[in-house]
């Protein structure tokens, strides 16, 4: 590495450290800027959606696999963790680990089934997987109570640290901090991952699988790995969703949820980590701001997704780069 490159990398990593600090600070002050239970609910929904979008982006944006089954991993995380708590008396964090692991492993299972498939076949296979999971949740009534749903799911247990007041997650602000903090942690870990040689390997497979294989990269193994990681992150979102909402019904994990998550990733800018974060926040809050137009507000997901694909395939990230290039007068870097 040349000295200039080393300096640039040093600059970027210190830049990153400040960015993470700033993000943590923003998360800390947000519930005090946007007060009231309405906003606290919205903020927590944003945090859950950020997790979902990050998980899908890792599979779609980095490994290049169009996964339409993210709603299934989300639902599996939610149901597995909740059932372990309510039926088998697991502690919350034990159930959390089990839910994440189960979602991750089912991602690996689907990938093993589907890695030979590319593009459209994978899209439909993963959609089929999401349909099966939704139908199982709906029809395995002795376990999931089917469409009646599961009620009165307890919040995560309070944390009592010596010398500090007890943190109860019945408090919506504390629950927001927990979920947003976790999302920040996931962002940090994925950021490390995509900038490591593993990230470069995944990108190489996405860009040209044949060439990557000819360099000795085991494309199949890495695609399975990406599916496992992305599915586990989706599962974690489910583990938080259940105690946050307090009830679980199968229709929360219908296949249309996969399309909503897909919209967040694409609108934000797939293949970047920061894009889906803003995509998730934008598409969570925009329908709320449009409450005046009634049910028609949900059309924004479809409109945003279609327009972005047609005119700005790099999403918000590409738009931001174009704007910044306009302001500084520098030529826009390719997205």
């Amino acid at each position, binding site marked *: 590495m040349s000295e200039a490159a080393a300096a640039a990398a040093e600059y970027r990593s210190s830049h990153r450290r400040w960015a993470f600090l700033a993000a943590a600070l923003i998360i800390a002050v947000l519930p005090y800027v946007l007060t009231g239970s309405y906003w606290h609910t919205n903020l927590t929904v944003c945090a859950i959606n950020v997790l979902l979008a990050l998980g899908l982006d890792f599979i779609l944006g980095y490994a290049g696999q*169009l996964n339409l089954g993210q709603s299934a991993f989300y639902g599996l995380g939610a149901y597995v963790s909740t059932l372990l708590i309510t039926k088998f008396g697991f502690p919350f964090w034990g159930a959390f680990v089990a839910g994440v692991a189960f979602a991750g492993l089912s991602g690996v299972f689907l990938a093993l*089934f*589907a890695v*030979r*498939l590319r*593009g*459209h*076949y994978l*899209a*439909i*296979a993963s*959609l*089929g*997987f999401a*349909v*099966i999971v939704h*139908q*199982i949740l*709906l*029809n395995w009534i002795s376990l999931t109570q089917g469409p009646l749903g599961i009620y009165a799911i307890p919040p995560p247990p309070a944390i009592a640290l010596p010398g500090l007041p007890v943190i109860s997650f019945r408090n919506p602000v504390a629950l927001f901090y927990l979920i947003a903090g976790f999302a920040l942690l996931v962002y940090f870990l994925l950021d490390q991952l995509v900038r490591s040689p593993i990230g470069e390997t995944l990108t190489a497979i996405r860009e040209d699988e*044949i060439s990557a294989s000819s360099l000795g990269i085991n494309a199949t193994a890495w695609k399975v790995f990406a599916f496992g990681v992305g599915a586990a992150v989706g599962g974690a979102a489910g583990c938080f969703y259940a105690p946050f909402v307090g009830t679980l019904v199968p229709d929360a994990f219908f*296949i*249309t949820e996969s*399309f*909503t998550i*897909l*919209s967040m990733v*694409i609108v934000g800018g797939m293949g970047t980590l920061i894009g889906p974060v803003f995509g998730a926040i934008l598409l969570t809050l925009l329908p709320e701001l449009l409450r005046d137009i*009634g*049910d*028609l507000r*949900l*059309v924004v*997901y*479809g*409109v*945003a*997704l*279609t*327009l972005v*694909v*047609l005119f700005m*395939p790099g999403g918000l990230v590409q738009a931001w780069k174009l704007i910044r290039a306009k302001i500084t007068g520098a030529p826009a870097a390719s997205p």
Partner: protein
Amino acid sequence: MTATIVAQQAINGIVLGSLYVLVALGLTLIYGVLVQINFAHADFVTLGAFAAYFFIHLLGGNYLTSIAVALVVGAILGWAINLTIFAPLRHKGSELLPLIATIGVSTMMQNAMLAWFGPIPYAFETPYSQQVFRVAGMFFTAQSLIIIAVSAATIALLYAFMKFTFLGKALRAVAQDRETAGLMGINPSYLIMLTIVLSSALAGMAGAMLAPVLVLTPFAGTTVIVKAFAIVIIGGFGNVEGTILAGLLVGLIESFTTQYFDPGLIDIFVFALLLLMLAFRPTGLISERREENV
């Protein structure tokens, strides 16, 4: 007695299956010429169903004419999606972007229909559902006879069109090799447009015939389309005969699962079959030599 039940369920399965064939054929035709999936195909089915419903209930039209109305609505939607999505994105050469864009169109249409028509199911009744014939212990409604007759005639016409007319041959030429077909004086853009219009017309028409069978809500098409996806893969993408076979098979799975197991298991069985096919025989029921773009 059991034989009668089996025969009865076989008929029910074929009635339903022939409607799935109409929907799935549209998907497979588009895939054949364009190697793309139109996700909004589902909503063309739904909108076809609603068009027929409103034609009957607001304009006082009769049911048979409403099938034609739904067909026209489907064709117009197909023309529109080609103009706005497939044609502009074709030159970007991305495999997944058009698919993602049509998912956007689908979400948009569903939520617009939800806002306008509401979530409460519409009762779509035709005068033909009440006319029941009894033959050898089995029941036929006039509705199911109409469905079989119209579907069979449509499929036969389509087949003849593809095999015997110049346009049909040109279409197959574009499906096989777009560039060479272009050199032979065939205009691929025009033929792709024609295919999408034709396919979408089938979807709209199927919607009008499915509406009395389905629970007619803005999401009605989604439940059909996921089965149609399974059908096109089980039948082999782009393969017309395979699609017809797989469509009837899925219809039969549905009717027999309802009879002997539980309707809740239908999708699980169909998609388990899909995943097994993908794992062990991804070329579909009837193999067709097709060059993969390596």
